[in-house]
């Protein structure tokens, strides 16, 4: 059976930790880093459940800073 799987890459230093992607993601893939901050002092967004990503790109769309690149591929699972 094949399924659409996605993956995101966050530009950590562009991220301002606004959480809009965290809340927008329908699969709850993203959270703000617990114990790390980026060079500007922001807790950046990161995929904590990357396997759940479906590549819908909603996170990328709502991100005000264009931090998130989204990839999508049909895979056999």
């Amino acid at each position, binding site marked *: 059976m094949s399924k659409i799987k996605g*993956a995101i890459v966050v530009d950590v230093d562009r991220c301002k930790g606004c959480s809009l992607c965290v809340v927008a993601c329908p699969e709850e893939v993203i959270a703000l880093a617990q114990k790390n901050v980026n060079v500007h002092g922001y807790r950046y967004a990161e995929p904590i459940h990357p396997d759940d990503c479906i*590549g819908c790109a909603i996170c990328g769309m709502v991100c005000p800073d264009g931090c*998130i690149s*989204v990839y999508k591929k049909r895979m056999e699972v």
Partner: protein
Amino acid sequence: MSNEIISPENLVYTKPKLMNDTIMHYCPGCSHGVVHKLVAEVIADMQMEEKTIGVSPVGCAVFAYRYLDIDWQEAAHGRAPAVATAIKRLWPDRLVFTYQGDGDLACIGTAETIHALNRGENITIVFINNAIYGMTGGQMAPTTLIGQKTSTCPYGRDPEIHGYPLNITELASNLQGTCYVTRQSVETAPAIRQAKKAIRKAFTASMEGKGSSLVEIVSTCNSGWKVSPVEANKWMEENMFTVYPKGDLKDTTGIK
């Protein structure tokens, strides 16, 4: 598994090409960034990267010219529609738009806004309405809601003292020179898609000589409103959409 997926041929979304790598000065969660992306995408989709001139406002977006790699003119507060009028009339085959906040467009710039729209200048005015003056620290705007607290109406906007929120977009929809007047938002993916379509329609209408367009984006200012970005979206949905209802107020463009 991620490594298999993360590969150039699988890319479905990324920061638009016209948006450069300069980190934007906007506050975390600010609607400006989302709208900037849409403007960048539409210009590229229309293949007008080399023929576009943007006019930036006085307001948080004064530095819009740092982030989108097109030619820009910085206008005096409120004067962008006049600046754009001249550029478009003198270079009619260029795509010319202004990008303005609520103070710029509906307060000090009211005359320039109304007259450029009424003359039917072939430009698009992108109007970011977040009901507050963000850049200068959170003062009342002409679109601030009744009861909304800002630094110059700390007890809430009182119509007896401050008058009523200004529905300039409704005024614009009554001007004969306008061909497309719409109100959008960018807090959810469907809204973002709608907003992008609206910007595309407006830009296209201006290139087809159909007249002036006003695209209002009801937006958030979490810093000025003193809430988190996520809370700001909620507050906007609950309070602003009733005073500033979304949708097309006028569309005579004939463009799908």
